[in-house]
């Protein structure tokens, strides 16, 4: 396959995720109606009162809330993915140079295997009632880092063993120099793929937290919260539940597709990277 064709294929697979996250980010500015005031009857059907997708449980415009309800989810997930990838990259690189750190992180990852992420999020948000969105983000980062460090450390180990890093270490270079100047620049491809995977995981966790009502609180417009709030009216105005459901589903699918594209293809084994 020629380089241009491969580039085009890459762009096609990344495009849905970029378009959808872009739309979610600008959505709050292009809503046709107010997101917090009723414009039609509760669960008004599509078309009533000039609404394209009908009304929600208070008669607020579903389309406007749909446009407004994705930004926080996308921003939170991006932030979680960035923090997890950054922390994991540094810890993984340190672990490759200092084996003790690597072993400690490995044990913590073993322990966290026993803690379902959804329960972990609930544990943190309920123990920290004033935490709000910060609690969700903090919990998602803490739960994600150990797995990500395993990956980063695995990729950093061969680099740490390479001649030039050992030469620099023998030459008396400090730890941070080895990590930041010698190892991390060589992990770019792995870290990009890791970022994609952590974004997928973060969308799942942040959306689930929203659905369990420990993330954004009413009357905030949020896709996951819309599904929870409007589920009793699913027969009266299906769009009030289906539209945010499709939005979250498409976001998860497109981001997952993009992440799979970014993941290094090293044969069938690559599947275990997820």
């Amino acid at each position, binding site marked *: 396959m020629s380089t241009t064709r491969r580039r085009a294929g890459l762009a096609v697979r990344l495009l849905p995720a970029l378009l959808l996250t872009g739309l979610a980010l600008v959505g709050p500015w292009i809503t046709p109606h107010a997101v917090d005031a009723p414009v039609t009857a509760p669960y008004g059907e599509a078309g009533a009162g000039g609404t394209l997708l009908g009304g929600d449980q208070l008669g607020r415009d579903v389309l406007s809330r749909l446009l407004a309800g994705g930004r926080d989810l996308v921003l939170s997930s991006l932030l979680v993915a960035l923090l997890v990838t950054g922390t994991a990259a540094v810890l993984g690189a340190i672990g490759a140079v200092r084996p003790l750190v690597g072993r400690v992180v490995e044990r913590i990852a073993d*322990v966290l295997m*026993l803690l379902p992420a959804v329960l972990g999020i609930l544990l943190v948000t309920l123990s*920290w009632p004033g935490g709000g969105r910060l609690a969700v983000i903090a919990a998602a980062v803490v739960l994600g880092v150990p797995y990500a460090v395993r990956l980063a450390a695995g990729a950093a180990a061969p680099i740490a063993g390479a001649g030039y890093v050992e030469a620099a270490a023998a030459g008396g270079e400090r730890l941070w120099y080895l990590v930041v100047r010698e190892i991390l620049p060589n992990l770019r491809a792995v870290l990009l793929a890791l970022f994609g995977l952590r974004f997928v995981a973060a969308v799942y966790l942040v959306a689930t937290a929203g659905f369990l009502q420990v993330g954004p609180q009413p009357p905030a417009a949020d896709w996951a919260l819309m599904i929870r709030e409007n589920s009793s009216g699913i027969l009266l105005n299906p769009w009030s539940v289906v539209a945010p*459901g499709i939005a979250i589903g498409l976001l998860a699918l497109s981001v*997952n597709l993009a992440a799979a594209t970014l993941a290094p293809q090293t044969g069938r084994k690559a599947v275990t990277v997820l």
Partner: protein
Amino acid sequence: MAGPLTSPTTAPTASPLSPGKRSARVFARAGVLLLKWASLLALLLALVFLTVELLPGDAATATSERGESAADLAARRELLGLDRPVLERFLDWMTGLPTGDLGTSARGEQVTDLLSSAFPNTLLLGAIALLLTAVLSLALGCWAALRPGGRLDRTVSGAATAVLALPEFVVAVALVLVLSLWTGWLPAVTLTDADGSPASWDMLVLPALALTVPQTGWNTRIVRAALADEARTPHVESAVLDGLPPHRVLTHHVLPGALPAVAAGLATSTGMLLGGAVVVETIFNYPGIGSVLASAVADRDSPVIAGVTALSGAVITVVLLLADLVRDVVTGGRR
């Protein structure tokens, strides 16, 4: 979602041993594994206690009503035992767990009583979903593996990748809409008997399916990858060169070696299934830990979630231990 598939234990290097010696070895090995997982579980429980303890806010303030005086608050702290020293409460919590005492909720009820009828229901749902996941992912993975790289292989792998990232509540809403509200085939809401269990079997179908779909996507990829790895080993190549039919090579030569990886993958799904069950149960009004946790969320009741986390941690520990034992039994004799 992304769970690690690696298990830190390695297969024992078994040389030809007499049966007696071998079983002694297996027992010693099982003892080591048991010790390892028990200590990891103890670490998790300590971590859970620390999380509840160190984050700002406690069970007494979380349930306080507006305008409540500081004296009332102190009285409830005393009632809930929160005024005792941290170390004493930690030891109480850790020593109470093995006896089935999961602590006291912010409302003063025993967490064990809250969960006694709910947790078995969740376990039933999770077990059905795990069984479905195992059957479906093995079938799909093996089916795809018969023609590596063919159209079917690519379709199955693509579909598996597509669904594995879907949140369970999105799958559940789609299933309810199609299989219940539009076609009327299955009930959308779980009704309960007098004893608190689901009234009929068909009420379990939709919740179990909602849990199964993402996990099947995840495990199909693991099965497919494990089969591909095993297919490259010399004994499989020689079986192919001997001219055995593909399905026989698959069932007799590829699958046995791939089983430990498949078991490890399914074991890590247990945590995802228990977490997902909390979400799915609230949609279907299923009488499990999901509904207990829904009211805990409304009350910001941290002792309840700590108890649920401890209990599910114990279940996951048992399943991971079993997966490790499967690995030992399968690889122990041969390698």
